[in-house]
């Protein structure tokens, strides 16, 4: 077993160990802080191991796989389980463990007010999540990836529903679960088709065009669900009912990126289908633009960020659809840092002002300079301001999309870039500048170092990570070298313009929203997509279910009940044979004996 | 046919002898009891009352043969006949000397024990058919007692069988003639086994101190309450013969049978048998009757475990002792 893969294995098993201990020892879990420490230790170990694996890989530049056959039957194994360390999984592993570590440390402060029992439970879920995500990331084939995929789905469910006494949270958890589960059917079908066609769950199989299209479309369905792409994005805003650090970790940086990661992972498959990539390109750009529009009008800071996440994931998907695997992956990496940063900063703000509404904030930059600075750095990175992480990756995406499908996606993404800058500017100006909206905002204070430390770390990374694009590309065997082009200038210009517009609109205190924004707001309020699903559910699914229920009750059950009645009737007749008197039974036995003996003799 | 003739002639001889011995035995017992109780016993009929038994028999045979109205006539008649036949039948396999034996069966031991066990049937038939509650109670007690004491009896009999390695009575005697009497060596399973056999035999033949089926102070005369005349004679005789045959079997099994110095074998055998017979009377006129539950407790809690222990010891002896049975 080579060093890199053993490090990766440690990265998987360290949080697993923590989760196992916390599951097996409820007494320890209910202690709260020790459980949290154990969980963070696990994450720290995982992060260290991931870093070691990455450096090892950077040294050798050789992908490594360690695996064991699984589900053996008749000398064949269905698939392998193990770890694979290559240019995709190693950086992803580092990103995941690092963000998880930051979020967990942040949570120490953020979740401080919870009861000790809930505190321990929270961290136990976190450890389980990290384990699941790592399983997904390092998997050497798509079957293990599927297992990790479902595991993170479960932990997502658990963490969204963390405040399970709150009806909205429980509802959101169920919604997220069902929507992603619907999408996961695609993954299952895709895997089955892949296995049928190629006999394995590897992502390097060569498939016929039709099969490749089917398989990748099915996989993409799962991506749409997990990465909250239009039209299955509806669960992500609701998922904001979970604790804010959870949103930062699962629903911004890591889990939702798993969909993108899947496409990156299975790039050889996706490369075989032009159709799927076109679908991805369209879906990605539509999602990016659509979600950005919705983000314009949200008043809940977390929902702004949630739609922003949708939008950025749309960017990544569009990049992948355009054929730029590295573009998508790079944006995934940078986005993970600055979006986690944004969410944690938002969490810090929310913790201070006890509200999610940006209208109830204001002037926070002065009272919480570190948080405000971190949020602004994140917002600038997201807006694609030159020099920050988002700029490089977004530029790469735009470059990839340019010219595809009549340039419509490119235009959409450019518009998105503008809108992104605008809505982030809106949030920044409304929440962090101007006058405090109320007493909470006026007396907001910075929190302890457990919350400030991760912000500083992530802010730093949001600034610098863009410059490592070349190394990242080199690790994955891609060619990338940044050069400032006209497209980049256009994008950053649009971003700056968006910020400027936001300043013009919101910079000097709250003001009546422009007419166009009000229109978008009205459209958003109509919840068209959700209502479409509700219609589909109530009118189609429920009616069909009612019809099926009728058939089940009166036809299927009727048959069964009839069987029962007939049996009963026969039984009450047959019961008369059972006199309960031994001589009668003996008589029957003897009849049988005589009959058998006679049969034998006659034979 | 020769064997058959041999068996028949010796059988007749043995039966006659037994019956004579019974008659003499009754006289002897009465004299013996009289002496024990500081009285004379029979003196009037014949010299020293020797013909008293004959007179008694004649008297009994002349008595009216009464069958109670509600009795089960068939069984009532069958019972004494069966009792007499069984006790005499047991005598058929007992070797009185190396030649004086009616049927030298290879499973003589089992024959004796089995017929002894069958006596129960006769006891029961008598008690039940009499339609008399004393008789029935006596029969019930008799059955419980016989079935229970059958166990230590068989166990004690197994000791010589194991040591000699044969179930033939004459074979056992022959082994003792060649080696030693079982009552003397190996003394630990041998002598206690003799005691056990003696006690179990007393119980099986309903003799004092185990005469609970009769128990004249409680049950009038037990199973024989309703019997008179010839049937009573048969019962009486059967009981005597049973005791006599039991004594003979004990001699054969434990005391070397016809083995003895100087005198002919038959004399030794008769002497040993009569000695044991006298011992039975000695006990009868010395001891009191046991209570029914005490009797059972003695059997199951004392004698049966003892018997098992003796059988185990005998087995160990047969396995490990030098010069054991072939």
């Amino acid at each position, binding site marked *: 077993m080579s060093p890199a893969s053993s490090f990766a294995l440690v990265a998987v098993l360290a949080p697993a160990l923590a989760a196992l201990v916390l599951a097996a020892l409820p007494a320890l879990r209910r202690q709260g802080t020790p459980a949290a420490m154990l969980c963070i230790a696990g994450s720290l170990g995982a992060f260290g191991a991931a870093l070691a694996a990455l450096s090892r890989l950077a040294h050798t530049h050789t992908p490594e796989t360690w695996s064991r056959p699984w589900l053996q039957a008749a000398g064949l194994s269905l698939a392998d389980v193990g770890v694979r360390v290559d240019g995709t999984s190693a950086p992803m592993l580092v990103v995941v463990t690092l963000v998880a570590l930051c979020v967990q440390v942040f949570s120490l402060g953020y979740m401080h007010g919870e009861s000790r029992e809930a505190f321990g439970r929270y961290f136990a879920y976190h450890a389980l999540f990290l384990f699941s995500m790592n399983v997904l990331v390092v998997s050497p084939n798509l079957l293990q990836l599927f297992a990790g995929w479902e595991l993170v789905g479960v932990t997502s469910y658990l963490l969204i529903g963390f405040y399970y006494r709150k009806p909205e949270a429980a509802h959101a958890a169920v919604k997220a679960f069902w929507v992603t589960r619907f999408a996961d059917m695609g993954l299952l079908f895709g895997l089955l088709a892949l296995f049928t066609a190629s006999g394995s769950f590897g992502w390097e199989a060569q498939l016929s065009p039709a099969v490749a299209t089917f398989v990748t479309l099915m996989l993409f369905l799962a991506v749409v669900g997990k990465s909250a792409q239009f039209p299955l994005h509806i669960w992500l805003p609701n998922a904001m009912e979970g604790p804010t650090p959870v949103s930062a970790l699962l629903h911004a940086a890591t889990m939702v990126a798993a969909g993108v990661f899947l496409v990156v992972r299975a790039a050889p498959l996706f490369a075989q289908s032009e159709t799927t990539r076109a679908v991805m390109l369209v879906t990605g750009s539509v999602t990016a633009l659509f979600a950005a529009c919705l983000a314009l009008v949200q008043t809940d800071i977390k929902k702004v960020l949630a739609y922003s996440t949708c939008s950025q994931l749309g960017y990544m998907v569009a990049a992948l659809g355009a054929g730029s695997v590295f573009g998508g992956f790079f944006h995934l990496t940078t986005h993970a840092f600055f979006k986690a940063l944004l969410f944690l900063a938002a969490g810090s703000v929310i913790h201070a002002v006890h509200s999610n509404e940006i209208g109830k904030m204001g002037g926070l930059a002065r009272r919480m300079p570190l948080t405000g600075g971190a949020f602004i750095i994140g917002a600038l990175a997201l807006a694609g301001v030159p020099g920050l992480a988002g700029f490089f990756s977004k530029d790469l995406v735009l470059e990839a999309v340019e010219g595809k499908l009549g340039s419509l996606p490119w235009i959409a993404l450019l518009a998105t870039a503008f809108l992104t800058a605008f809505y982030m500017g809106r949030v920044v100006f409304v929440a962090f500048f101007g006058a405090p909206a109320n007493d909470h905002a006026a007396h907001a204070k910075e929190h302890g170092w457990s919350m400030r430390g991760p912000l500083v770390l992530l802010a730093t990374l949001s600034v610098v990570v863009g410059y490592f694009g070349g190394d990242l590309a080199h690790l994955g065997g891609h060619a990338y070298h940044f050069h400032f082009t006209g497209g980049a200038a256009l994008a950053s210009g649009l971003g700056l313009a968006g910020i400027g517009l936001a300043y013009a609109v919101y910079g000097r205190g709250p003001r009546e929203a422009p007419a166009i924004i009000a229109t978008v707001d009205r459209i958003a309020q109509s919840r068209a997509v959700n209502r479409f699903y509700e219609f589909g559910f109530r009118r189609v699914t429920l009616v069909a279910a009612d019809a099926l229920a009728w058939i089940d009750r009166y036809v299927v059950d009727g048959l069964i009940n009839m069987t029962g009645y007939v049996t009963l009737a026969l039984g009450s007749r047959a019961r008369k044979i*059972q*006199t*309960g*008197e*031994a*001589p009668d039974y003996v008589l029957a036995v*003897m009849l049988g004996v005589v009959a058998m003996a006679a049969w034998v003799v006659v034979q | 046919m020769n064997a058959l003739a041999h068996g028949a002639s010796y059988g007749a001889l043995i039966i006659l002898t037994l019956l004579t011995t019974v008659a003499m035995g009754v006289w002897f017992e009465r004299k013996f009891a009289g002496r024990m109780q500081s009285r004379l016993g029979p003196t009037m009929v014949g010299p020293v009352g020797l013909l008293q038994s004959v007179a008694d028999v004649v008297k009994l045979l002349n008595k009216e043969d009464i069958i109670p109205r509600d009795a089960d006539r068939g069984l009532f008649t069958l019972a004494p006949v069966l009792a007499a036949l069984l006790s005499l039948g047991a005598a058929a396999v007992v070797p009185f000397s190396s030649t004086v034996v009616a049927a030298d069966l290879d499973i003589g031991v089992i024959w004796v024990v089995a017929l002894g066990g069958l006596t129960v049937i006769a006891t029961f038939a008598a008690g039940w058919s009499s339609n008399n509650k004393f008789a029935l109670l006596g029969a019930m007690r008799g059955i419980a007692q016989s079935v229970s004491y059958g166990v230590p009896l068989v166990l004690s009999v197994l000791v010589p069988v194991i040591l000699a390695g044969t179930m033939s009575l004459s074979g056992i005697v022959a082994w003792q003639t060649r080696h030693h009497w079982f009552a003397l060596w190996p003394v630990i399973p041998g002598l206690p086994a003799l005691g056990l056999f003696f006690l179990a035999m007393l119980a099986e033949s309903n003799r004092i101190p185990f005469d609970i089926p009769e128990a004249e102070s409680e049950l009038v005369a037990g199973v024989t309450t309703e019997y008179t005349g010839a049937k009573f004679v048969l019962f009486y005789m059967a009981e005597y013969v049973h005791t006599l045959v039991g004594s003979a079997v004990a001699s054969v099994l434990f005391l070397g049978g016809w083995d003895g110095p100087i005198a002919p074998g038959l004399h030794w055998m008769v002497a040993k048998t009569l000695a044991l017979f006298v011992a039975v009377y000695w006990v009868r006129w010395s001891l009191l009757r046991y209570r029914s539950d005490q009797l059972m407790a003695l059997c199951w809690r004392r004698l049966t475990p003892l018997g098992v222990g003796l059988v185990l010891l005998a087995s160990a002896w047969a396995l490990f002792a030098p010069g054991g049975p072939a």
Partner: protein
Amino acid sequence: MTLAGCLTLAAALFSLGVYGLLTRRQAVAVLVSVELMANAANLCFVAFSRFRGDVTGQALAVFALALTVAEVAVGLALVILLYRAHGDTRVDLASEMKQ
């Protein structure tokens, strides 16, 4: 004396036992019939043992004998129980299982 004779005798005894088993209602009488059947089976064992010149048949008969004794012991215990429960020992009285 032939094997056929012994077997026919056994068959007759067995059939009589069957007849008794089917007609008798008294628990003890049922036991009597069962014993008759078991005895018939034993007779077959012994006859075949002689026929084949193999002592195994007799061994089987001994086993069967012991089994029968055990059966009678338990059976009579049940009869006594039946008597305590019903004051009678007719087997058709013991039909509580019918309900």
